[in-house]
């Protein structure tokens, strides 16, 4: 058996750690008990912690996300699993009208220590509405934090940090990476910062910014560009709200050419926000326009066309070249 754990196993270990450490932690979701979730992220947890702490809910996203808010009020710390990206939509009202507003409504006194885990994104040949990338809906909703890990270690560290955060965290899990690679992890995850990006490859000629499954695409593109002699920095954004402004500005200042990649549609996407911040704050340092490689402004296509719609290594390479040659 290969060493290390997959991302989905790391998520499960982090959840186990949180349940072990904090008796107030409770998991809610569809089919997360005996079945261990449709992706097996919670496999074995109900056997370990019992059906009162790892709860198979009725099929009722608005109901159990709303209930998570109520649980927070009485001192519990719920972690909710949404089965697939698009099935968070019934719960959107609870998140937008309540979760994001609670601390504000109490003049800063009480936050809601809840985490909403959302397996998201395309590339798994899934039926309609199983491949959406809805992160921008939440990064545009005040009061919510939005994060996305890109490897097993960051998945575990960010999840324990999200559980400890004290404000609602939308935790986007790039499901196409769930079983992609393995990584060594420590016995215990140390909570990482929730709002720091990470430079995952150093470089000086062009920077590629990405999150979730697109980090892998960015790294592969960097490898190919390196063969052409370009030095490519890759930044894993990790936090989509708030953005790590400091790292973004430093990257633009040091590198001068920036490409942003995401699967979500282009319009009003995270890349648009990055581009806006950079032109507002470090326009003088930009040697090329900030370029975007994104999903299309349309429903995620049925899967025979998904490889064409998803940002690919070649699209990222070509766009980075355009930035380099500008």
């Amino acid at each position, binding site marked *: 058996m290969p060493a290390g754990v997959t991302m989905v196993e790391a998520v499960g270990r982090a959840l186990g750690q949180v349940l072990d450490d904090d008796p107030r932690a409770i998991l809610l979701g569809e089919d997360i008990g005996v*079945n261990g979730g449709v992706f097996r992220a919670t496999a074995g947890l109900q056997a370990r912690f019992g059906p009162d702490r790892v709860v198979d809910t009725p099929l009722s996203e608005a109901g159990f996300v709303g209930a998570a808010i109520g649980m927070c009020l009485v001192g519990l710390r719920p972690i909710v699993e949404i089965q697939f990206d698009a099935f968070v939509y*019934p719960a959107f009202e609870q998140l937008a009208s309540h979760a994001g507003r609670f601390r504000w409504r109490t003049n800063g006194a009480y936050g809601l220590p809840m985490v909403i885990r959302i397996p998201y994104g395309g590339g798994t*040949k899934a039926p309609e509405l199983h491949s959406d990338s809805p992160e921008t809906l939440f990064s545009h909703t005040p009061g919510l934090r939005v994060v996305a890990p890109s490897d097993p270690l960051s998945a575990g560290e960010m999840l324990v940090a999200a559980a400890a955060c004290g404000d609602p965290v939308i935790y986007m899990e790039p499901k196409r990476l769930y079983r992609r690679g393995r990584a060594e992890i420590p016995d215990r995850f140390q909570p990482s910062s929730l709002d720091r990006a990470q430079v995952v490859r150093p470089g000086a000629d062009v920077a590629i910014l990405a999150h979730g499954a697109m980090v892998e695409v960015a790294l592969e593109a960097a490898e190919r560009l390196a063969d052409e002699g370009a030095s490519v920095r890759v930044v894993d954004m990790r936090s989509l709200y708030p953005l790590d402004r400091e790292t973004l500005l430093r990257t633009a200042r040091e590198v001068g050419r920036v490409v942003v990649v995401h699967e979500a549609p282009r319009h009003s996407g995270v890349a648009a926000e990055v581009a806006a911040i950079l032109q507002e704050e470090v326009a003088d340092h930009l040697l090329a326009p900030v370029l975007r490689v994104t999903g299309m402004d*349309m429903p995620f296509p049925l*899967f025979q066309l*998904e490889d*064409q719609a998803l940002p690919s290594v070649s699209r990222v390479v*070509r766009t980075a070249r355009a930035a380099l040659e500008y």
Partner: protein
Amino acid sequence: MRDLGAESEDLAPGAELMEGASTVLGLPDHRRREALSDLGRPLALGLFAAMARLRAFDERAVILQRQGVIGTYPTYFGEEAIQAGSVLALKDHDWLFPTYRQNSVVVLRGCPPEVPLLLWRGNPAGWHDVHRLHTAPVCVPVATNYPHAVGAAWGSRLLGEETVALAYGGDGSTSEGDFHEACNLAAVVGAPAIFLVTNNQWAISTPLRLQTRVERIADKASAYGMPGVRVDGFDVFACHLAVREAAARARRGDGPTLVEAVGYRLGPHGTADEPSLYRDPESARRWGPWEPLGRAAAALVDAGLASPEELGELRADAAAEMRQAGDRLQGFPLPSLEDVASRVYRETPWTLRRERLREPTYLEEG
């Protein structure tokens, strides 16, 4: 460890689960024969033939999934009676609102079977002709199709038409808000709608007892002031009659009906699901004898309405039809992404026009 919803006696097949469920096949011999001859041979055989086609489609789809020709697929093995019975109880201009689980009912409306197969292959040619077939696109988000049926039914009434709309759903779907909002709205406005809930006892791994604390989903109807009826979901004749009656009510102007078709999910949730992780494989085996095609065939032969050879031929024809449909998938043309992008708005905005999609950041080739 797991008290609620653990496998237990009451999941075993038995009369008590079907209590209060209308039946034809469960009638004493002479009354069953009588009921079947009242239906008449053409309709009785038509119902069987429709089930045979649905079964053949489902079996072919599972094979195609294993061969990698289509992607993950939600089999409906054992639910053919509910689907065939209901479609044949309605008129062609009535509207159907299927979910993933009724993905091939369009075939009973005249849609070529390769169309729903192409949907599971991820080809946009898999979207059927909604307006010609009066069947909404397959609905994936659970329960979200119920309000659509209410609007179609209510709207038709406002337009002075005599159209009924039927929405399908599962036991799990009755936990979603959209189900309750749809039921209430339909009852309040008197919409000629039918909510046909397939109670197969499971929503993926979640058993009915973790889904609801009423024993009968049909009982939920009383909260909205509409009739709720139960029917044996393995009995195509009973399903047909129950939906026919609900449709007659709707057309008379007496409003919506909730029909609970009681059954058991004999197969996995879908091809990616592994039921042995959460339920005793024995229980599906014990429910096996309720399988609707075998039951219907035995009754038809017993009533003298058909010979085993004739029924076997219907099944063989259906199998051939679906095999041929499957054979047509591989070479089936795939539209370009640019074409699909031009099908999102009536007037395509610049964000999705060809010129935009040929910019280097979007373009795949070159």
